[in-house]
């Protein structure tokens, strides 16, 4: 009987869990009774105002644009270099050391150095994000290239597939899971880095705004922006990444 009561469908559970979280927040806010922990309703109101005024969409848009540009550059470069290193052992042995170093440089250091060397410019901000992201993409795609099925490549060769045909029909479908993995981990990483980049050296974007709210101790705005941010990330996951996964993996048993 108990199991019967708790048998909800997935949507109900999601709604319920979010409601409980909201309840806890409401409770905590009323206990704390402080400006530093505003009520959910207040945050919602701030969110609405910031959206109406166009301020939030503008800064969110600027950040998303930076994300799109730096992400695309890192993915395209990373895929090309990753495939190259996966195929060529000598190149791989040479550049592997560089990769290890770049993987271990703290993001903050790259950001500061980019600003110091190239000035507080848009290109320096993009470059900093790309440098932080690139080694991860390279390593993931390199793994994927090493794992390519030699049997299938031989099949393509004996049936005289051209290079492009081999890539489209034989190599790309095998790399796809690795590209998706690089995309997911990459987005998660870039989200975080891009805010620091904006905080340190840009005069717009989410990071800049968060910094401003910190100085003003405006926690309500800070939370409102954060939720907008989280919602966008989830939308990208649901509307873009999941359908891509489903389409590419429908052949799996």
């Amino acid at each position, binding site marked *: 009987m108990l199991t019967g009561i708790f048998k909800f469908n997935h949507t109900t559970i999601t709604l319920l869990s979010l409601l409980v979280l909201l309840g806890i927040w409401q409770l905590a806010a009323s206990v704390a009774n402080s400006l530093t922990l505003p009520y959910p309703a207040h945050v919602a109101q701030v969110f609405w105002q910031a959206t109406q005024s166009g301020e939030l969409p503008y800064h969110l848009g600027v950040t998303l644009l930076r994300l799109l540009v730096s992400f695309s550059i890192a993915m395209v470069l990373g895929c090309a270099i990753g495939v190259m290193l996966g195929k060529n052992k000598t190149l791989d042995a040479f550049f592997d050391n560089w990769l290890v170093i770049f993987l271990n440089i703290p993001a903050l250091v790259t950001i500061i150095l980019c600003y110091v060397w190239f000035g507080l410019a848009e290109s320096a901000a993009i470059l900093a994000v790309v440098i932080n992201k690139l080694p991860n993409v390279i390593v993931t795609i390199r793994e994927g290239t090493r794992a390519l099925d030699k*049997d*299938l490549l*031989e*099949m393509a*060769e*004996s*049936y*005289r*597939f*051209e290079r492009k045909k081999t890539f489209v*029909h*034989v190599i790309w*479908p095998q790399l796809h899971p690795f590209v998706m993995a690089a995309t997911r981990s990459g987005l998660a990483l870039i989200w975080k880095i891009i805010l620091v980049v904006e905080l340190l050296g840009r005069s717009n974007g989410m990071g800049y705004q968060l910094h401003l709210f910190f100085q003003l101790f405006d926690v309500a705005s800070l939370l409102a922006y954060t939720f907008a941010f989280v919602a966008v990330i989830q939308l990208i996951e649901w509307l873009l990444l999941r359908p891509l996964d489903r389409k*590419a993996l429908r*052949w*799996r*048993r």
Partner: protein
Amino acid sequence: MNDITISIQDKTYRSGHLDDRQHQAIADLQLGVGRNEFVCLLGPSGCGKTTLLNMIAGLDSHYQGHIRIGSQAATAKIGYVFQNPRLLPWYTVRQNIEVVFAQTPPAALIDALLADMQLSDVQQVYPERLSLGMQRRVAIIRAFAINPDILLMDEPFVSLDAPSARQVRNLLYSLWQQRPHTVLFVSHDLREAIALADRLIFLSPPPMRIISDIPVNIPRELRNDEAQIEAFREHLLSQHPAINGLL
């Protein structure tokens, strides 16, 4: 006039072991295959049969000698049925056949081949959902479909249970009778080879050479007859006792 001429003086490869010794796979091999002839290569495992097929297919060019297929060697169309089906798992059965064409795939021909191999019902299915025997049949269709200058088959019935192996073998044989092609078929099963081939080539352990070259004179319509196959086999083994030790 031979359709295919194989003349290998030397094929050596590094063992890949720590000692890094050179292994000679083929010392001296001369083989001519006539147009639309079905030739079976028999030999102990590890004697270099797959290496030879890979060389003919152009996958391995590190050897001394030459291989001529038809008039044009470099542009020859190869239909290769590998030991494993090697289908692209992200494509359906039909897409797997269509993908090997450089131009528009001939729909009618593919329909006919699918029907011949009794696969019409599963042409929209992904290979991993099929039995191994069915996957092998898809691989055979793929090889026939491009109308190749030579069909290479590397033990295409290995690790099938006996009834499935026989079924695929019979389907292959009738397909080949309808659409004759030059075939080089690697096997280590003498009965299978007798049932299929015009000629049996027995190969030695490495360095590989031809031990004997025996025509199979059983009429085509009697190839299903187990007694005929068995009688030929008995006779062959009594005439060439050396073969017994090879297989």
